[in-house]
C-alpha cells in the first residue's frame, strides 16, 4: 500500500455512465490485476475505491462509474490536476491457476479488472476467452481493447441490441480451464452455479477504509470471516458462502 498524490494524464467519458482516467506517479506500483486504488475527492469524507483496469510502472488506468456527487466531481477534474490515492489495495487475482484456456467474465462496471488480468494471461501465452456482459449496446466499452491483445471476445447484452441476447452465463463456452469473474452479485452467483471448473470471483462492498482496519466490508466465507478490501476483493470459488 502506498499513499501517493497522482497526476491526471487522461480523463474522458466512455459511455453515458463510465469514465476512463489515467493517473501517474513515479513510485506508483500495482502488484496484481484485480487490485484497487482508493481516491480522496475534495469535499467528500470517504475515499472512493476503484478497481485497476490497466497498469504500467508509474501509470495506472481506472474506469469508473459516475454514480453520485463524488464521482461526478472526479469526472470534472482536468488533466494535470492531482488526486490523493492509496494504491495497491486488495489481494487481486492469482494468475498461476489459470490453466491454458482461462475464461474471463466481466459484467457492467465489473469489466475493467478483466483487462489487466487478460493482458497478463496473454503475456503468459494463454488462450484467453473474455465474455463481456452489458445491459444494452450503448453501455458497451473496452471490447476492442480486449480484441487488440488477442483475446477471444464474446459480447452479451440483456436486450440483445449487440452480441448475444442474454447474460454472460448464457454464452459460456464448453471448454475452459479456469474462471475469473467480476460483476454485480446476481451475475457472480449465476457464474458460480454454472461454472464447471474452479475460479476466482471479485466482490464489491461499501468500504470504510479500504485497507482492512474498520471491518466495514466483512463477509462470511467457508474459511471464516473475510474483509472484502484486504482479504478480497477476490475470493476463490471454494470459499464463497452465499447468504440468502
Amino acid at each position, binding site marked *: *500500500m502506498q*499513499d501517493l498524490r497522482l497526476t491526471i494524464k487522461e480523463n474522458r467519458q466512455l459511455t453515458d455512465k463510465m469514465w476512463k482516467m489515467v493517473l501517474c506517479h513515479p513510485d506508483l506500483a500495482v502488484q496484481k490485476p484485480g487490485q484497487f486504488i482508493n481516491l*480522496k475527492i475534495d469535499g*467528500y*469524507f*470517504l*475515499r472512493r475505491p476503484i478497481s485497476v483496469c490497466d497498469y504500467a510502472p508509474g501509470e495506472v488506468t481506472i474506469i469508473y462509474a459516475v454514480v453520485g456527487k*463524488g464521482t461526478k466531481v472526479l469526472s470534472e477534474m482536468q488533466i494535470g490536476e492531482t488526486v490523493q490515492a*492509496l494504491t495497491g489495495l486488495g489481494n487481486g487475482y492469482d494468475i498461476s491457476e489459470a490453466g491454458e484456456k482461462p475464461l474471463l467474465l466481466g459484467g457492467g462496471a465489473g469489466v475493467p479488472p478483466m483487462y489487466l488480468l487478460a493482458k497478463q494471461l496473454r503475456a503468459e501465452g494463454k488462450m484467453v476467452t473474455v465474455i463481456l456482459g452489458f445491459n444494452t449496446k450503448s453501455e458497451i466499452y473496452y471490447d476492442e481493447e480486449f480484441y487488440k491483445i488477442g483475446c477471444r471476445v464474446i459480447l452479451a447484452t440483456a436486450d440483445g441490441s449487440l452480441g448475444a441476447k442474454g447474460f454472460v452465463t448464457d454464452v459460456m463456452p464448453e471448454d475452459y480451464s479456469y474462471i475469473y469473474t467480476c460483476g454485480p452479485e446476481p451475475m457472480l452467483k449465476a457464474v458460480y452455479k454454472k461454472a464447471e471448473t474452479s475460479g476466482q470471483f471479485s466482490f464489491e*462492498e*461499501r*468500504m*470504510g*477504509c479500504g*485497507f*482492512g*482496519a*474498520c*471491518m*466495514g*466490508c*466483512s*463477509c*462470511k466465507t467457508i474459511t471464516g*470471516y473475510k474483509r472484502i478490501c*484486504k482479504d478480497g476483493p477476490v475470493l476463490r470459488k471454494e470459499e464463497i458462502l452465499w*447468504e440468502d
Partner: protein
Amino acid sequence: MGRLSVDLCGIEIDNPVIPASGTFGFGYEFAEIYDINCLGTFSFKGTTKDPRFGNPTPRIAECSSGMLNAVGLQNPGVEKVIEEELPKLKEVFHKPVMANISGFSVDDYVYTSEKLDKEEQVGWLEINISCPNVHGGGMSFGTDPEAAASVMKAVKEVTTKPVIAKLTPNVTDIVSMAKACVDAGADAISLINTMLGMRIDLKTRKPLLANTTGGLSGPAIFPVALRMVYQVAQAVDVPIIGMGGVSSAEDVLEMMMAGATAVQVGAANLVDPMACPKIIEALPEAMDRYGIETLKEI
C-alpha cells in the same frame, strides 16, 4: 518526559494521541505502513466474551464531514484475542496497550475484563458501554446511570489495572453518566462514542445501512464531543480521554483545552492511515504557535 508526554492514570505516555477502538484493529494493518510505536498507545478492537461476526453489510455510509458505521462489534472473542491477536500485537507494538471491552450483561463485562486484566501488555481497560450498533447491549448500559455504575463496579472488583468508562453522547445528561461511573470506581472517562444517525438510499427509499441506523463519526461531531468533554471535565476529577472527529494537532489542543488529558483519533485513521503520525509530528509546531510549552500545562 518530553513536551508531548502526559500521565494517563499513572502511566506516562509519550504523547496524548491514541487511535480509537474499531479504527485500528489490533495494530497490524497500520504497522505495515508506519512504526506504530510513535503512538501514545492505541485502543484495540472492541472485544466481547464470545466471537461475533457483527451486523450484515452494508455497514458503512458517507455523510457531510463524517461517516456512519454499523459494524456491530465484529471480533473473534476474548479467548482468541488473547491466544492469537495479542501475541501478534506484541511483535509490532512495545508499549502498554488499551484493551477495549464490550458486553451484553454485567457478567459478560466481568468475564472479558478479568481475562484481559491479566495480560501483561494491557495497560488500561476501556469499558465500552456505548456501542450504538448492537441490540440489547452496549449503549443500553450507557444511557442509564445505574446500569453504567453496576458495570463499572463489577469490573473494578475483578481487575487491577485502570478502568476507563467509554460513554455514548446519545444521552440527555452526559454529566450524570460520567459521575455515576466515577462514583462506581472508574479511573478515567473516555468520550464520545459515535452519535446515532441514519441515511436513506434515494433510489431504493430504504436505509443505506443493513442495520438501519449507525454511529456517526468524523469532524461533524467534534463540537458536540468538545462540549461534552468540557462539561464532564467541570464535574469529575478523573482524567478524561476526549474523542469525536479529532483530525489535526489543533483539534488535539482544543480537546485538551476543554479538559481532556489524552485524545483518541477515530474516523481520521480510516480516511488517512497516516493521520496519527502526522498529528503527532505537527503537535510541537502547533504548540509553539499558541505558546504552549508542554501539553501537561494545558
